[in-house]
């Protein structure tokens, strides 16, 4: 039964019947003589294609092209075998597979370095249709999904559960600001090269055997502003199915890396899951480089104890170290510690950090790193003071210093969603101070506190290992 959509679609498709009879007549008129001289006319058509459809639009170039055509015919078309030899037939078929099917294959990169041999790496590639590509690098847990038709590419970093969306994908410069464009170009170019190949530009390499199959070889050269590509394609002699493709980019500028690309294990006519080519980040992943720092969710009004910590962090770089330590020792850690948006070290999560625009990421990173350094300096100071107190057998005072350092470490490590770098510093501080506390409680023979400190140290170690795996 026909639905309203069927009726509308029929109306849509009626437009493609417009002028059909007239177009048929025009076509048939131009084909009238061709059936008699099929070969010759086909050669002329190749020459015309060679001269170029676009330049044929100008009257002068039309005349010039006509002259070229006549001269070529007069000197003997047989010399132009490059356009008509047997290999171009098969090459067209090979291109048909590469440029019109859905297929999977392995893409292996072999770095070419003079200094030292580098390891090859293999990426799984999937083509949904011309211009739509997915690459999965399982070793690095990175995927890229590209739609050349819309100029968009999504890079997915599975380990970090993050994605970067690149739009207006015209990689004019291999050295982009964040390096991502360059990496992307390096991987996708070999496949773009294959999509851009044209029948009639190849050199026939003859036949050979690969894995027990007789294959026919073709060689094509391409060039862009950065590389000259030497492309070799070996395809099954009978079916035209590609068996082995090698792309060797020769850098025009020697500062570019050079990698030889090998494509094999082609599986044709697959029906890939279209969801794998979706340009939206998978559920649970964060889209990077989208937000400004100012656009992050506003934090709470800082609590009284949090204000003290902020004050301490401001005083230390100004050289007021004694005052800063005094404030630290006066903090009541049992009270709530709520921070505002700033300093970012206490507020920004790893996901929020990933979602920041590139320049804001850098800003946030610089600030967090500077404050983390200040925290470490303060901790070293209180540990030194604590050790001095131990030497003076002032164990109560020593414990106060160590406890302050430990709490500062715990503050950085308290939120599992915090930036990984912040938690890393927090755990390091905890470990350092807990070791001092273990020494203290061993000296004072306080078994209960010793056990507690040892347990906390083990927990910190376990947390560090967990974080290392996540990193």
């Amino acid at each position, binding site marked *: 039964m026909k639905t309203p959509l069927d009726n*509308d679609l*029929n109306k849509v498709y009626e437009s*493609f019947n417009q002028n059909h009879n007239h177009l048929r007549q025009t*076509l048939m008129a131009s084909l*009238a003589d061709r059936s008699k001289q099929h070969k010759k006319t086909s050669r002329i058509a190749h020459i015309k294609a060679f001269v170029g459809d676009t330049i044929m639009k100008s009257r002068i170039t039309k005349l010039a092209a006509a002259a070229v055509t006549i001269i070529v015919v007069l000197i003997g078309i047989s010399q132009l075998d490059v356009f008509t030899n047997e290999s171009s037939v098969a090459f067209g078929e090979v291109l048909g597979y590469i440029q019109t099917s859905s297929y999977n294959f392995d893409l292996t990169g072999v770095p070419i370095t003079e200094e030292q041999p580098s390891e090859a790496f293999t990426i799984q590639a999937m083509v949904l249709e011309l211009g739509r590509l997915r690459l999965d690098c399982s070793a690095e847990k990175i995927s890229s999904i590209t739609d050349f038709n819309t100029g968009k590419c999504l890079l997915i970093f599975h380990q970090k559960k993050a994605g970067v969306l690149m739009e207006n994908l015209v990689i004019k410069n291999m050295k982009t600001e964040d390096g991502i464009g360059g990496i992307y170009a390096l991987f996708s170019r070999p496949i773009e090269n294959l999509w851009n190949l044209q029948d009639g530009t190849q050199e026939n390499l003859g036949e050979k055997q690969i894995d027990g199959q007789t294959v026919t070889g073709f060689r094509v050269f391409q060039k862009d502003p950065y590389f000259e590509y030497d492309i070799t394609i070996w395809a099954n002699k009978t079916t035209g199915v590609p068996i082995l493709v090698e792309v060797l980019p020769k850098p025009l500028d020697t500062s570019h890396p050079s990698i030889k690309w090998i494509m094999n294990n082609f599986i044709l006519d697959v029906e890939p899951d279209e969801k794998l080519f979706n340009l939206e980040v998978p559920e649970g992943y964060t889209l990077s480089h989208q937000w400004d720092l100012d656009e992050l969710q506003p934090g709470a009004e800082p609590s009284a104890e949090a204000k003290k910590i902020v004050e301490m962090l401001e005083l230390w770089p100004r050289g007021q170290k004694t005052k800063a330590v005094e404030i630290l020792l006066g903090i009541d850690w049992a009270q709530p510690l709520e921070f505002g948006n700033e300093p970012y070290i206490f507020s920004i999560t790893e996901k929020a950090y990933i979602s920041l625009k590139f320049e804001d990421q850098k800003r946030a990173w610089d600030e967090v790193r500077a404050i983390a350094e200040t925290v470490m300096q303060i901790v070293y100071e209180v540990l030194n003071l604590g050790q001095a107190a131990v030497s003076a057998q002032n164990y109560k005072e020593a414990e106060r210093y160590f406890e302050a350092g430990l709490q500062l470490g715990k503050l950085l490590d308290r939120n599992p969603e915090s930036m990984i770098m912040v938690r890393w510093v927090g755990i390091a501080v905890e470990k350092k101070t807990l070791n001092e506390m273990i020494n203290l409680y061993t000296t004072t023979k306080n078994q209960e506190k010793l056990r507690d400190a040892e347990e906390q140290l083990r927990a910190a170690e376990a947390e560090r290992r967990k974080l290392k795996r996540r990193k």
Partner: protein
Amino acid sequence: MTQPSDRELVQAVLAGENTGYEKLYDRYGPLVRAICYDTTRNLTDAQDLAQDVFMRTYERLDRLRDHDIFGKWIVGITRLRCKEWQRRRSQSRGRHVVLDGAEPVIGNPSNDGRVEQLQIMITKLPEKERLALHTFYLQGQSAENARRIMGLSRSGFYRVLERARKKLERLLVQE
């Protein structure tokens, strides 16, 4: 009366009977134009490009090994030719992506707003789904013909077609 098969028509053309090619043109002309339109987004350019495809196909007809797959073959040639057209066009504009943000322009716009809207929606579908719609609606709504052209199984073809139709319905509701 039974229609001659693609194989019979191709063999007739190779034997010098151009009427066979006329019949192939009637059978596949609108489909080739529809595929070209996906690239050109302009009916006049699509018609020109389709004429060029039929010229090329005619010149290479003796290279077609399996005469039964003429439909699949010409669709493949059309897609290649479209890619070439797009590349030349982008080179002449000095850009890689030609159709960024380009709105489709149809030769003789329909008075029916929904139909026009539908035409635009189709260009937004993935290529495989567009092709399923083109082949189905321009091949007399015969799933058998359409699936042969696309090189899919019958169930595979219906899956793609259904997906395309559902997406269109969803897009139309959203609009």
